């Protein structure tokens, strides 16, 4: 067979592209764990949360989260009553101006509340592991992504630390690690859930207010729970496809 110079010029680049995929090969997957069999999320049962901060401390221990940074944190909301005056209701509307505190992310719990008026509740927050996450879409180098099992992860070897994703997250769940200088966030304890364990925060929660859920598992109790409870996600209007389900979430939560 005779190849002309013209044919060679066309064939060489094509061969180079093909060789690349040959070299890549078929990477081995983790044994006993099929990524396509899972679609992870979490259920937060607000009435069960007592604001002890166990989850925040457990997350810091498990994932070496630096002090002052949080992969998960707890907020305490206080929505005041609606006292009416002669001229009408007081402003601002307590529902749109709740009092929110989170001292050191709630790591050491909260000061005892003495004001009996209004209502209180605790809102644990963490990465929502959105199915259409804004943070992964803005990464200029492909260092953050949604894994095939629905977990939003950061490739810290590839991250430049440009912090676009930190700004893009509508839930404030990302930070730049102070010493690694790359984006860091909740991995939904990916190193645990792929071994059949639950997350550190769920393991440490004393009241069961947090539950890891696998939406692809037909036997997961989440399916029955979603049918029988009023469940909401944060900022549904942003269409992020959040998979952090809050039971009994108050309208004042932002």
């Amino acid at each position, binding site marked *: 067979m005779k190849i002309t110079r013209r044919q060679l*010029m066309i064939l060489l*680049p094509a061969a*180079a*592209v093909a*060789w690349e995929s040959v*070299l*890549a*090969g078929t*990477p081995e997957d*983790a044994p006993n764990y099929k*990524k396509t069999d899972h679609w992870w999320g979490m259920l937060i049962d607000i*009435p069960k*949360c*007592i*604001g*002890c*901060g*166990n989850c925040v401390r*457990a997350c810091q*221990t*498990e*994932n*070496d989260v630096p002090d002052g940074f949080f992969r998960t944190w707890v907020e*305490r909301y*206080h929505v005041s009553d609606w006292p009416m005056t002669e001229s009408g209701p007081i402003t601002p509307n307590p529902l749109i101006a709740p009092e929110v505190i989170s001292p050191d992310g709630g790591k050491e*719990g*909260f*000061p*005892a*509340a*003495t*004001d*009996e008026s209004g209502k*209180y*509740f*605790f809102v644990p927050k963490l990465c929502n592991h959105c199915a259409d996450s804004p943070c992964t879409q803005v990464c200029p180098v*492909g*260092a*953050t*992504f*949604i*894994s*095939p099992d629905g977990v939003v*992860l950061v*490739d810290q*070897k*590839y991250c430049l630390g440009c912090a676009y994703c930190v700004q893009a997250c509508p839930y404030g769940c990302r930070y730049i690690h102070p010493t690694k200088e790359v984006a860091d966030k909740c*991995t939904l304890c*990916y*190193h*645990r859930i792929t*071994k059949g*364990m*639950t997350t*550190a925060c769920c*393991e*440490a929660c*004393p*009241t*069961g207010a947090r539950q890891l859920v696998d939406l692809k598992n037909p036997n997961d109790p989440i399916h029955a729970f979603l049918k029988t409870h009023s469940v909401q996600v944060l900022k549904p209007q942003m269409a992020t496809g959040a998979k952090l389900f809050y039971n009994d979430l108050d309208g004042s939560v932002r």
Partner: protein
Amino acid sequence: MSVFKDVGHLFRFAGLFVLAFLVFLVVRHYYVPKSFGQYGHYRGAAIGEIAQRPVKFAGHEACEACHSDVSDKKKAGKHAHVNCEACHGALASHVNHMMGTDTQVPKAGPGAPTQLADDPSLEKPVLPDTAVLCARCHTASAAKPKGFPQVDPASHSNGISCETCHNPHSPSMDAGGAK
């Protein structure tokens, strides 16, 4: 006079262009990681690397494998749903030490256990201080759910430690103190 008089220049330029493209492909081959694009626009191998991070909380199943006496007592009491490490802290290092699987945890680098292998706390972990521990959950606050058992620690026990009357594994007074 032909427009293509010096057509050879164009061919030489095209040749340079093809050469540059080939150089680009070769450089790209060495600089783009092999697994990039395996699942999407990211390095597929990163998933495996994140999954390899060491575990610090062993999980209550690991505790119950040896401490079934405690877990049986706990199951009968009001703390049945409280996992061991919620109070005792992360103890995968203890489990690894007792099971002789220390080697699975990297000894150096980020994420390595802070304790050394001859640390006695690996053999017998430090007991939590009930004065701090119980108060974290059970200190009375208007912010806590109304049905949750809450006390004012100062007036409730007069400084007597919690476990004098309550066994943390089965806290009802009928179950007796921890002895």
